[in-house]
């Protein structure tokens, strides 16, 4: 056979395979329940610009067929146990379904006979979602670190690329940890992340210019840790922390991460100056976040008095770890004078509820605040009881976002730039590996059922042995290349100056 004939046949075969629209089984037995699909996309509300919601049917079937019925049409998909939707066709489906819903009927061939499951809906919101998210990809962290990367994912497709990978500079003796990527107003011309140990420093992109800064000063506990970009000025609020880690011998939570010391600082990017925001005795201040107008700083703080001088603070903290509970505070801020005033506790979680509140994030319209809450501590990603709560900043009323939460840990909530989407780090799948989940937050302030960020292979999360940390929305991709970051990383960091208030 001539070579070109073989290629033609192969091309046709590929074309047929790529346009696989199986027929609907005619003799299927109707089931009264929903199909067991993974990820769970039943009755979820999705953005009108998201990539296909591929899923796998976990019914022990040899073949499955899913019929998607949408305004003006229907389409079938099925590939063994998986439902893999063509990206171009999906765009058409979303376009037709905007503000409406897609009905999904799933058929599964189990032991030679077809079952038809109760149909479910996927609601397509008229609101779009930010094109990009970024996260740190890391093994469920203990002490060792080797290969870490901060990746950006295009939510409208399955494209993912690395923003920075620590292995681009790390050697055995200069191992590098990277963390806390953060963006100003969802844009990437002002962004940062930290590097620890080898080539340590904070990489700051300021108005597109890349800098490497050493934020540790003699007057502060540490370099900057948890960051928050000021929305209108070139300031960044950071916590400074002395952090330790210890291990549960048996408890399902496995790890406790505690701060034995913790303060807040403000970094003026243009002046390269660090100043103190709060360094109260017996207070562990952490997790700063700004209001959208930049006139208020919210943060968490735990009141903790060391009682035993005969042992190291780290040891006492380990012994009394359950006593560390964080409340929510706010302080007024004058961006012109950089002065903070009127510090007040806006949510008493410790004394009144016996709970600990962390990771506050204010909605882009300034009306709501999301935070994570659990029984104690600051590192809720390892607390199975951690859930996401919503505070109405007008009424100060809080409510649990039950549609977003699962029986396992939810932490690190964040808002999309239009405030219509919430993203949360969740361990709902297995309690050990964090996955980003997204939920619709409608105009009435109601959160809808959360769903996992779609992956091309619906089994991706099952086989992926790393976590997605600190998922953040971005409206544009990071344009600095990993190699440019690597080159800068090898340079000496510019030392930040300390400025007294």
């Amino acid at each position, binding site marked *: 056979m001539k070579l070109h004939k073989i290629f033609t046949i192969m091309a046709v075969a590929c074309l047929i395979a790529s346009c696989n629209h199986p027929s609907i089984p005619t003799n299927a037995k109707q089931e009264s329940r929903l199909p067991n699909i993974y990820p769970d996309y039943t009755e979820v509300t999705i953005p009108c610009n998201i990539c296909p919601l591929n899923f796998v049917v976990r019914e022990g079937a040899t073949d499955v067929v899913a019929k998607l019925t949408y305004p003006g049409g229907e389409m079938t998909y099925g590939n063994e146990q998986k439902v893999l939707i063509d990206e171009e066709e999906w765009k058409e489906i979303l376009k037709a379904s905007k503000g409406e819903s897609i009905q999904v009927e799933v058929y599964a061939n189990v032991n030679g006979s077809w079952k038809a499951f109760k149909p479910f809906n996927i609601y397509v919101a008229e609101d779009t979602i930010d094109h990009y998210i970024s996260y740190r990809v890391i093994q469920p962290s203990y002490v060792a670190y080797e290969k870490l990367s901060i990746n950006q994912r295009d939510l409208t497709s399955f494209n993912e690329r690395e923003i920075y990978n620590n292995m681009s500079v790390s050697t055995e*003796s200069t191992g590098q940890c990277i963390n806390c990527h953060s963006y100003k107003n969802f844009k990437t011309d002002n962004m940062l992340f930290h590097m620890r140990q080898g080539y340590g420093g904070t990489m700051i992109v300021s108005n597109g210019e890349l800098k490497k800064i050493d934020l540790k000063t003699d007057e502060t506990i540490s370099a900057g840790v948890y960051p928050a970009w000021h929305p209108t000025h070139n300031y960044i609020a950071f916590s400074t922390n002395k952090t330790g880690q210890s291990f549960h011998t048996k408890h399902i939570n496995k790890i406790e991460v505690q701060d034995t010391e913790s303060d807040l600082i403000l970094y003026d990017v243009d002046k390269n100056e660090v100043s103190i925001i709060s360094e109260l005795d017996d207070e562990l201040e952490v997790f700063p976040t700004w209001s959208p107008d930049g006139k208020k700083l919210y943060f968490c703080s735990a009141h903790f008095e060391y009682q035993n001088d005969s042992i190291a603070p780290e040891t006492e903290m380990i012994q009394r770890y359950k006593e560390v509970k964080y409340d929510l505070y706010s302080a007024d801020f004058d961006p012109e004078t950089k002065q903070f005033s009127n510090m007040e506790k806006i949510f008493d979680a410790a004394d009144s509820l016996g709970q600990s509140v962390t990771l506050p994030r204010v909605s882009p319209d300034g009306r709501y605040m999301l935070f994570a809450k659990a029984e104690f501590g600051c590192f809720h990603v390892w607390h199975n009881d951690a859930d996401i709560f919503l505070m109405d900043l007008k009424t100060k009323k809080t409510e649990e976002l039950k549609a977003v939460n699962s029986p396992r840990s939810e932490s690190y909530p964040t808002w999309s730039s239009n405030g219509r989407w919430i993203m949360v780090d969740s361990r709902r799948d297995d*309690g050990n590996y964090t996955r980003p989940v997204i939920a619709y937050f409608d105009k009435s302030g109601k959160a809808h059922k959360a769903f996992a960020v779609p992956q091309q292979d619906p089994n991706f999360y099952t086989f992926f042995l790393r976590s997605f940390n600190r998922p953040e929305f971005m409206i544009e991709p990071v344009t600095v290349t990993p190699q440019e970051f690597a080159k800068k990383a090898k340079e000496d960091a510019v030392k930040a100056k300390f400025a007294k208030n």
Partner: protein
Amino acid sequence: MTKNSNRKPMATQAKNTVSGGKVSQQTTKQAPKRTSKEKKPVTITKGAAIVLALLATLFVVVLGAFHLIARNSDMLFMAQSKDFFTTNRQWLDDCMMQPGGLIAWTSSFLTQFFYHPALGASIMMGIWGGSLWLSKWAFRVRTAWMAILTLPVICLLVSTIDIGYWLYYVKQTGYWFYGTLGYFVAMLLVLFFSFFKKRMDKVIVTVLIAITYPFLGWYSLLALIYTATISIADKSGSETLVGKIAQPLIALLLVAAIPYGCYFLYPEVRLEDMWTAGFPYFTNDDIISVYPEVPFIVLAILPLGFAFIPKEKEPKGLAAWGVYAVTIAVFVFSYIWTEKRDFQNYNYHAEMRMYRAADEQDWEKVLDEMSSLPGDASRQMVLMKNIALLNTGEMGTKMFKYNNMGANPANDFDTLHVHMVQTAAPLIYYYHGKTNFTVRWCIENSVEFGNDYDNLKMMARCALVGGEMDVAKKYLDILKTTIYYKDWAEDLWPITENPELIKEHHEFDNVRELRDHMGTVLDGDNGLCEMYLLNYFSNTMNKDSKLLQELTLNYALVQKDIQLFWPRFFLYAQLHKDQEMPIHYQEAAYLYGNLEPQNVNISGMPFDQKNVIERYQNFQQLSQSLLASGMKTPDVGEAMKSSYGDTFYWFYFFCRDIHSY
């Protein structure tokens, strides 16, 4: 001249050559009229060359089989358990994050066959054989010189057997087959190149070879360099000087340029590493070990000379003798080198056998290994022995009958510091019921050295024991995609659906009992597994689990702490009423009662007269007399080892200065 007349002298020559000098003399006898000027020089005929080539191939196979299968089966099994392969697309993507990803992926696929060491070794030797002949054809090396071509393969053999404790610290994905496959593919590329004679064709093929860099990494660059040497050595063509240097120049330029050009495709690779992507570095913390890298360096350099090997069809005279000499030298050198570099430390191999036996809960085999030790045990082996005795219920009667010394892990070739947390701690913690610590070190080690089957198995077990069924499903799901761990995963899978079924899997019984009766605290081991276990268990009291209680008593004995001993001893007695007190507990009670009579009055305790009281008195008497004679304490211990090395008395007084790691 007819065909027949042509054949005759050839046959004679062949006969002469095979038999060497003696036959030459016979030939002389058969033709006495020939003068010395007419004597035919020793010639390596085509047939003889083939014999030499086959001999070289056979030599590689025999040497390989001897070192891999006969001597290192235990190591090869461990090697595959510390490796990972799955058909899932993610694994391929992970491998392709570095240049040479395709070799890494294929290597990890092949490494799994070391589950049956003979099978894996046969595959490896098959590829070596293939490489040997490919290199011959690629470089157009005359068959007679085949022995030289075995040297790169010998390098590959050495790189497999000399690795020692680096086995636990290797970071290269699919290390075990990486060099083997890399060299094979490099030879394949060079062979492909050698088919082309026209200058332009050669240049095109050179560029094509360069394009393989993302898939083959370092070995693609080596192939380019080898093609350059072929062009330089080629004396057949009537090329101009420009024509002659065009291909080598382009090849070398591509070697310089391709890694640089591809740098932007690989965010996780340092620019300076792009030219050696796929070359295994042996580094850990501040330790850089050159020894294990030597075979790979030699492997890379040797083929540079292949193109310059004499092209004489039938080496004659001095050249023939040269072939013989080189062949013998290569064989002798290879034998000595492999013999010298084969890491045959007894404990190193015994640890692996014990690990596998413990993993399979073959406790008798663990104890058999311990019994047949020729020297001192490593602390890892001592802990494995303790676990075996805990599971056979013989701690009280046999704990001190085995060697309890602490030989440090041997490192003949370098300065690698071996830590138990990187070798066997996950398994050791698991059998102590410390499942969270098992998971911790499995993850720490997979962060450092990549995922492996062993870690996934351990984490799946811990998840099942801890009732974390969803994460157990995850690990089992992954293992279900593998060839050799599929059945293991499928066997345990039903527990994830019905947790009660774990009770039917008795392999979990003791671990569950220990774990369930342990409290939970917040602490850490600071990377010292044994010290942590000794401290934790010797300071624990538990009356609800006989198993856990006995463990606490034994670790109190190991700690040689009298205050810790007595409460645990009495609790043991209380929990085992109407049962005979095991010999070691009697020994300890009698010893401590005599050493510190003010603490506990042992006069009413029913000690075994002959095995405890009389032995103790004899022990004391002998030790005192030896000490009085001027012997130093360690010498006294050594002198008394054969008579009393199986007692707690000896352990208490003479098993000292043990360093865990």
